[in-house]
């Protein structure tokens, strides 16, 4: 099982690296948002209710990272759907491997990619003057939460792909992803959001995820936001993976 999952992980990673059109959005969109927000909204850090930060870029990094991980989930879903459309999924199903390995192979790859995304955005932040106040432990915390969240978002994309069976439907969820992200505290502190966004953000797991990713960047690692971030990421991953496995079973049952 492990050998098969690793082989499928390697294949997924190769696929990602050989599809620049799938990799580019993980970097370009979040960087554009980051540039626009940091360029135009820096003064918001002086607003009452804004947490104490060295600079707006430090605060925004977690938002860019969350956005990048979400887009990665969409591209994971598109890759899965293309695999179904192209028939390669059938080849995997007709092979004598545990069915769950098909799901896990791609998700482990998405998780590894998420680790690279985390390091990229943290590196970018450092390059442009941000500081990781939490130090190396902080980086490890961000990595762990990011990888878990990346797997979760990938699993959501995969579950949708297994249900929809076509790439264009999966692609169609992209705008929805952005809406969900904007009604969270990913880009602005919840305290500064006005109604009803503040209420929605309170129940939006992306808020807790983004806050968990942000805390080790803007301060020394504090237990509460980090645990909440872990809980949000783990919750998303657990539910999404269950949905993904159920979707796979459903698809095989319908066959």
């Amino acid at each position, binding site marked *: 099982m492990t050998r098969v999952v690793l082989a499928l992980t390697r294949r997924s990673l190769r*696929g990602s690296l050989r599809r620049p059109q799938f990799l580019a959005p993980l970097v370009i969109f979040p960087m554009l948002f980051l540039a626009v927000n940091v360029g135009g909204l820096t003064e918001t850090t002086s607003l009452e209710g804004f947490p104490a930060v060295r600079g707006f870029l430090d605060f925004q990094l977690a938002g860019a990272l969350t956005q990048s991980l979400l887009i990665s989930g969409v591209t994971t879903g598109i890759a899965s759907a293309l695999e179904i459309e192209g028939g390669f999924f059938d080849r*995997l199903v007709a092979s*004598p491997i545990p069915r769950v390995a098909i799901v896990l192979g791609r998700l482990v790859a998405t998780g590894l990619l998420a680790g690279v995304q985390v390091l990229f955005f943290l590196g970018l932040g450092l390059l442009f003057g941000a500081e990781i106040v939490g130090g190396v432990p902080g980086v490890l915390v961000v990595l762990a939460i990011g990888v878990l969240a990346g797997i979760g978002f990938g699993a959501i994309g995969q579950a949708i792909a297994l249900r929809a069976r076509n790439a264009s439907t999966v692609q169609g969820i992209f705008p929805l992803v952005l809406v969900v992200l904007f009604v969270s505290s990913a880009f602005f502190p919840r305290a500064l959001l006005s109604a009803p966004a503040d209420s929605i953000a309170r129940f939006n797991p992306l808020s807790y995820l983004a806050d968990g990713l942000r805390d080790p960047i803007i301060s020394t690692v504090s237990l509460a936001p980090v645990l909440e971030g872990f809980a949000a990421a783990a919750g998303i991953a657990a539910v999404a993976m269950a949905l993904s496995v159920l979707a796979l079973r459903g698809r095989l049952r319908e066959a």
Partner: protein
Amino acid sequence: MATIDVRGLEREYKSGLKAVRGIDLAVAPGEVYGFLGPNGAGKTTTVRMLVTLLRPTGGSATVAGFDVSTEPAQVRKRIGVALQEAALDLLMTGRELMELQATLHGLAARSVRGRADDLIGRVGLSQAADRRVATYSGGMRRRLDLAMALVHEPEVLFLDEPTTGLDPTSRATLWDEVRRLRADGTTVFLTTQYLEEADQLADRVGIIADGLIVAEGTPAALKAEIGLPHLDVTFMECPDLGHARDLLLAFGKLRPAPDGVDVSVAVAAGAAEIAPVVRVLDEAGFTVAALELVEPSLDDVFAEKTGRHLEGAAQPAATPA
């Protein structure tokens, strides 16, 4: 015991379409079974059920001794599958795909590379092994697909229309490989819409139409059921076609002549009748422009059983050696 044993197999889709309507067939170990039929006849649906990709909605089937519905994992270990339109990851190289397939089928890590190289060489893709599959031609993709299906030396190989759309060279390579597999004792279930392919490769042929098997047997036996070969005669000029017909009637029953042919006559002795026919016509002063001995084809069998012809049967398919 049959390697593939199918009894009353049915598949009805949610839409209500009954693609396979209760078929029975048995394929012996080491046999190449040709499953012939036009598009939409139920060939691919049958194959997908036999390779455990689709659940039967009625009847039963065993492959290599295991039930496709209740023991699918056992079936998957023993079969090789090359589905219609080679299902390949275009972003990977041929060698990467072969090695992945070998791993999926549980080959020991130390033998993966060697097995991949062997099979890549066997299907003539050594030069292209490290190129991405996206750069392969259709024929190269089908050959790679076949090689992947063979990576674990399966007991039973399913080939779903393996040569559809291929150039003659690629078709010849695939035909040679199927012949080699037969010689090695592999059981092959081959679907095709090409008459020649079934004729050339299959030990036995099942003809499917509208989800039912309408005829089954060796190609020779099926054609023999239909009747005699016939001679199609075309004259340079023929002032008295009636007289020519009278002369040829002595050799056998006249048949409706196809377009461009003056007289068509069934001949019991086949090629042995050609010389006497030419002699009689020559002595009567007829000049023969063309004379062709036409053997009954599987399309004739199909037409006899269903009242219509196989799609593409009239097209002159390229015939590899």
